[in-house]
């Protein structure tokens, strides 16, 4: 039972990170139909931002703040430099553009810093574990769950209480009509990228906290997982992205914990088979986007 509780906390914390990343992909996809595979590089930028600040011996909170701010800046910059020129292009063109952006940033870090991981040493209290009743859990896991919860509430607030947030929801339904209201397309899209960058930045801080290092390819795996999560939830659906993230996190963590040792090497194969089974049963995902989109 204790192991189960422990693993559930781990599942929530990993699933939460996937959920934040998946949400970032979904926010952008729902508006500009771009699956941004350079989303992982937003995480990488956060990681190196933190690494740099910690090199200067500044406090960890400054490192976290700089990390998240750099994520927002790089996400908005990607849109401004690369994706804005491609606006209205078909999904494939946008996808390939995002691969190009991703590659460029990876190579810049490989050549500019190092292809090998650099250590991001976080204070002990972040990596310590605490007793929660009879259960020993990592501080990072607990923080991660709290932070993800706060981020989800904040995003909900933005999307339902601010004009730009409401316009973002409207734009995912019918972008042309949002422009007919006099609302700037550039502003709505830039805000979507900023939000997606902030979510990736928060996810990256949590990701780096559990790994203790950053490397140029750091974002590749999590963004792939996040993409899987958005597909499980229903591509373009924000609620679906969150659900998909937690489902994927739970599947991975429970398999890791409860699979017999001989089957462990096949963990990812088994977890992806479960995902495929979900998609066979629900081809549009668990919470599909319910809009009749106009072209």
């Amino acid at each position, binding site marked *: 039972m204790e192991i189960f509780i422990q693993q559930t906390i781990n599942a929530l914390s990993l699933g939460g990170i996937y959920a934040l990343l998946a949400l970032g992909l979904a926010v952008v996809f729902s508006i500009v139909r771009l699956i941004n595979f350079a989303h992982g590089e937003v995480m990488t930028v956060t990681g190196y931002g933190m690494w740099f600040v910690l090199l200067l011996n500044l406090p960890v909170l400054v490192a976290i703040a700089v990390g998240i701010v750099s994520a927002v800046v790089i996400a908005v910059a990607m849109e401004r430099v690369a994706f804005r020129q491609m606006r209205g292009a078909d999904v494939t063109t946008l996808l390939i553009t995002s691969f190009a952006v991703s590659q460029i940033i990876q190579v810049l870090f490989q050549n500019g810093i190092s292809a090998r991981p650099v250590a991001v040493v976080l204070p002990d209290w972040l990596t310590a574990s605490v007793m929660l009743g009879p259960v020993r859990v990592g501080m990072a896991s607990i923080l991660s769950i709290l932070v993800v919860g706060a981020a989800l509430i904040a995003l909900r607030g933005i999307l339902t209480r601010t*004009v730009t947030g*409401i*316009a973002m*929801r*409207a734009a995912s*339904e*019918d972008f*042309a*009509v*949002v*422009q*007919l*209201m*006099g*609302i*700037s*397309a550039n502003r709505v899209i830039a805000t979507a990228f900023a939000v997606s960058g902030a979510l990736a930045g928060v996810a990256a801080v949590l990701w780096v906290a559990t790994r203790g290092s950053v490397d140029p390819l750091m974002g590749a795996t999590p963004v792939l997982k996040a993409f899987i999560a958005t597909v499980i939830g229903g591509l373009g659906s924000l609620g679906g992205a969150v659900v998909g993230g937690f489902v994927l996190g739970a599947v991975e963590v429970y398999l890791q914990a409860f699979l017999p040792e001989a089957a462990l090497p096949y963990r990812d194969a088994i977890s992806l088979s479960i995902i495929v089974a979900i998609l066979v049963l629900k081809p549009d995902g668990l919470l599909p986007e*319910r*809009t*009749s989109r*106009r072209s």
Partner: protein
Amino acid sequence: MLEVASLKVRYGAIEAVRGLDLDVASGEIHVILGANGAGKSSTLAGISGLVPSQGQVTFKGEDISALPPERIARMGIGLIPEGRRIFASLTVAENLLLGGAEHATPTERRKRADEMRERFPILQERSGQKAGLLSGGEQQMLAIARALMARPQLLLMDEPSLGLAPQMVEAVFDFIVELKAEGLTILLVEQNVPMSLDIADHALVLAQGHASYRGTAADVAASDAARGAYLGH
């Protein structure tokens, strides 16, 4: 108020509007008639910047041909698109708010939204509901109210009576007359020929992207040529 000179709208190989001239005078109702595919909606889409177009569009003396749709909207041209296109997953109140988002301060926006709810009591009743749950007629009311939140000077209306029950059609036409009385200039695209000629000052008949007939609404109503063009002959 609005001058359109040799407007062309093209979708790939198809030329939907082929050099249209149009003058809409301040304070009038100007109706564009024509069969399906004659280029009526494309004309409105071209004027409002929703689709790329060639030719010159001048609004209150300013050339707006090359402006993006949001800039044109901010200059005082509202478009109620064909099929209403309300934001179905947003609440009625949120739809109204977006209508005025760029045109008024938050306080002013609330004031205008209250006016709209007073004018269309159904929007008051359904304020917190998802707009997609409204009936067709109610959605049309919302689409009109959403456009009016911006206090436009020129309102482009694309087939506002389409798909509505006869009673609702009458309500919509009455409302258009009311808007004119309040000083709004209206460019109306309609399939309902008799009712729109009844309320319009000027009319233009489109056939295959050209103006095939134009004149005062009374002229057009009396003309056989216009009737023929409308029927697609």
